[in-house]
């Protein structure tokens, strides 16, 4: 695990450590199995076309799970995710597979975030941040926010 983040390490404007992801058709099939969302919109070309989205699209719930990972990776094991929200702004289309395990060339997505507020409430040390996913063109296709509680070795002594 990465090193523990402390409340003192953070200022308003601090960056959440970015997390990169590559959505592939294979990943969406895996997600369908793990989540139970078998909507063919996410893996069948003809169906996706008939629904007006052109090509299969990345599950919103998977993008949400990426953003949760962004936050939990950043806050470490002693950090607690208290509140999380996200909205889907635009569709994302997965890369196709080149072979059994490698995706074709294409887009890479970046999960990112920025601290918007830092405060103490009821003895807990909170940080609010804006979080989002950028597609290969740098457009935010998913946006959200998170509130986390972080350990504070200085203030709890």
């Amino acid at each position, binding site marked *: 695990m990465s090193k523990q983040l402390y409340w003192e390490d953070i200022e308003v404007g601090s960056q959440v450590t970015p997390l990169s992801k590559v959505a592939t058709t294979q990943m969406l099939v895996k997600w369908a199995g*793990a*989540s139970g969302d078998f909507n063919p919109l996410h893996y069948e070309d003809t169906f996706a076309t008939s629904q007006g989205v052109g090509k299969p699209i990345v599950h919103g719930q998977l993008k949400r799970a990426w953003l949760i990972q962004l936050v939990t990776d950043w806050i470490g094991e002693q950090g607690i995710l208290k509140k999380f929200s996200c909205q889907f702004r635009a569709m994302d289309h997965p890369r196709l597979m080149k072979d059994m395990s490698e995706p074709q060339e294409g887009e890479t997505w970046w999960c990112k975030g920025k601290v918007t507020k830092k405060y103490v409430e009821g003895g807990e040390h909170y940080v609010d941040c804006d979080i989002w996913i950028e597609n290969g063109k740098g457009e935010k296709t998913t946006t959200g926010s998170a509130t986390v509680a972080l350990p504070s070795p200085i203030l709890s002594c």
Partner: protein
Amino acid sequence: MLPQEIVQLIGKTGEITVLEVEKGAIKKFADAVGDANPLYRDEEYARSTGFGGIVAPPGFFGWPTKWKSAMPFFSEIRQEVVDTIAKAGYSRILDGGIEYDFYHPVRAGDTLSALSKVKDIREREAKAGKMILSVIETTYTNQNGDIVAKAHQTLISR
């Protein structure tokens, strides 16, 4: 004005559904996200942390006995809302996002019960035309009676 049959759904609750949080399902979920965190798969490691054992990633609540999916997005009450609104002429559904409040970790071996409720339904005039926003609240409670999380899911019907 929303038709009466839609207004009547506000405040309605679905049935309680039981969710089993299995260790294997947690790992499979984390694998699908691409999250290699050992807390979700390595018993020995997880036991050495403050969690004391394998936990689920926030947002994963195991597999339900009644819903079709591990997510609350296929609950019966959600379907009733979607169907009723579709009958009024808004049959295209978009995911309007989700909000979670997390209170306690979900652990491997937990049995959760989930209860979904229609929190709100309202009309909104947007650039793209009239739409109906529905908010479904799902409360997850563990076997000890602790509320572990609440989810507020927004559906957009157009």
